[in-house]
Every structure is written in structure tokens, then in C-alpha cells.
């Protein structure tokens, strides 16, 4: 009998303790509010964060980006990718052709005719960005956020639009560059 009432008493008190905590939270809701009002507020959270300066560590992993002008076609990222979501076609060009320099001063020897990244397959492991000798492939945001703004909002209605094509040469360009020098030699 005593046990019976003790049980009732215990359940009431423990419930009230729990309720008290909830009510306490309700009243400090404005100050301790943790919800991020997403479309209006964006990461990094404007205030109420956990005490770091978001300017320093904005290294969230999001869309892969390639500065195609800097790419020398070494294919290191393609080999490092565990899933094979990067496809590169690099064409050999005759020695006389000048493809320009990268931003760090390396001479480009290969013509990048195709640089596709399939973001539906990417597993965001970041492994492709480390071996790049020219630092031209990177995840947007982070230290590269000046080059390319952070972008993690790119859902699509169609899957094929998630394959990003970075190569900027047209078929005509390829034909012109790869075939032009032999023609010149004939003239000479």
C-alpha cells in the first residue's frame, strides 16, 4: 500500500521536475533560441554562435569549383577521387602552340577539352583538392571564398544539371588549335 502511493508520488514529482525544466526553457527561449531561421539567416550563424569568429574558419565543404584557366591537365585529382566523379580529357597540342600561363606561372602544355564534375556522385571527401599543384580545384567556401563564393544551395529539378562542365573550349577551338600548326608547316 505504501509502495503504491510512493510510486504515485514519485511519478508526479519527477514529471513536475521535467515540466519545470521545459517551462524554464520556454521563458529563456528568446535568449537561448537555437533555431537558425534558414532562408533569412545563413551559416555561419549571425549571432548566438558557439564563440568562434566565422570569418576565420569558413571552411564548410560545398560545391567543387575549378579555375579552368589554371588547370594544367595533370589529372591528379581524377586519380585521387575515390568515386571517379571527375572526368578530364586533355589533348596534346603541337609544341609551338602557346596556351598561356597559369596564375602561378606554370606553362600549360595540354589543352583541357573536357573537365566535368558530377556532383551527384561526389562524396565531399575533399581528397581531390590536396594533390592539385596549381590549387585550381577546390571546395567553395573556406580559404578560397574570395575566389568563389560559398555555395551549398544548388538543388535541381533535373539530375543532368548537377553535372558541371568547366572546360571552356569549343569544338572549333579544339580543331583550330590541334590542327593549325601542321597546316603552317605545309606552307613553309
Amino acid at each position, binding site marked *: 500500500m505504501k509502495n503504491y502511493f510512493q510510486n504515485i508520488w514519485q511519478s508526479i514529482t519527477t514529471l513536475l521536475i521535467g515540466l519545470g525544466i521545459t517551462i524554464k526553457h520556454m521563458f529563456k527561449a528568446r535568449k537561448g533560441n537555437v*533555431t*537558425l531561421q534558414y532562408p533569412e539567416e545563413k551559416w555561419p550563424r549571425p549571432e548566438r554562435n558557439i564563440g568562434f569568429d566565422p570569418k576565420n574558419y569558413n571552411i*564548410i565543404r560545398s560545391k567543387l569549383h575549378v579555375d579552368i584557366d589554371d588547370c594544367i591537365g595533370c589529372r591528379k585529382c581524377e586519380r585521387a577521387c575515390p568515386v571517379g566523379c571527375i572526368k578530364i580529357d586533355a589533348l596534346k597540342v603541337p609544341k609551338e602552340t602557346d596556351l598561356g600561363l597559369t596564375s602561378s606561372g606554370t606553362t600549360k602544355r595540354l589543352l583541357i577539352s573536357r573537365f566535368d564534375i558530377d556532383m*551527384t*556522385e561526389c562524396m565531399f571527401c575533399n581528397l581531390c583538392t590536396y594533390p592539385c599543384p596549381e590549387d585550381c580545384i577546390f571546395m567553395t567556401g573556406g580559404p578560397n571564398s574570395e575566389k568563389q563564393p560559398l555555395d551549398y544551395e544548388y*538543388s*535541381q529539378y*533535373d539530375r543532368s544539371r548537377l553535372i558541371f562542365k568547366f572546360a571552356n573550349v569549343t569544338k572549333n577551338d579544339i580543331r583550330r588549335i590541334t590542327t593549325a600548326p601542321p597546316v603552317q608547316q605545309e606552307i613553309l
Partner: protein
Amino acid sequence: MGFLENRFEDNIITAKLDQILSWARSTSAWYFQFGLACCAIEMMATAASRHDLERIGMMPRSSPRQADVMIVAGTVTLKMASRVKLLYDQMADPKYVISMGSCANSGGPYSRQGYHVLKGVDQIIPVDVYVPGCPPRPESLIEGLLKLQDKIRKERPLTKKK
């Protein structure tokens, strides 16, 4: 809005029935609580305190009969594929599918040697929005859901299709 507009007092809004229907559908798209793999944890995080999906009118439902949106969150294996299809068939019209994360989009990391992984959930059910990421950040998922809401809002359920 035709001849009815500006003929009433200020606090009366007129709209086409079509628009009202699609607006109502879009703002109360209840999703089907159906986690498969890693993305399910992010889906839980999206529904939990930090991101709070109920802000945009989305509530988790445990039964496919009560749900409008199915979030395929995670890898669909061949053993699971027939069940996913079954669950999709059980949902009442109008129904929408969000493919969340790389695995549901195209098999993702498991698409190369995965002998037991379905290469993209769109092989078995139609997908409305693809949310990339592995797993997508909760913000990305919310953005995908907002995109879906846009899509629903543009629908005209009563207008005859040409």
C-alpha cells in the same frame, strides 16, 4: 485577378481556386519519415531543434498514407528498392519525391563497385528535386524543400492540361 479584384474591403483577398489549392498544398507538405542511411541523420537534424522543419510547414508522418512528400534519404539497395516502390505506391496523390544526397541521386560513392546498390532512385520512382551533398547540409535540404514548394505553387491542379 480579373474583375473581382479591388472590389472588396481591404482584408478580403481574392484568388483563383487553383492558386489557393496549390498554395495550401505547398505550405503543408508533410513529409514521410523514412530514413535509409547517413542522410537520415541529417534529416533528423533538420527536423530537430537547430533547423526545425516545422517552420516551413513540414511535419514528419510515420505512415505513407498521410504523407505528401517522400524524402529518399540514403542509399537504396536492391533489397530495399522494391520496398521503396511499395511505399511510394501507398502514398496518396498528389505525391512528390525528394532525392536527398549523392546515393539517392545516382548511387553516389557506391556507384562504381556497388553490386548491391541501386544507381539512382529515379530508376524506380519519379523524382522532383535532387538535393546534392553527401550528406547535404540541413540548409541544403531546406533549400531543396523550398524549391519543391515553388514547384508545387506553380502547379494548377484544376486547370486542364493542354
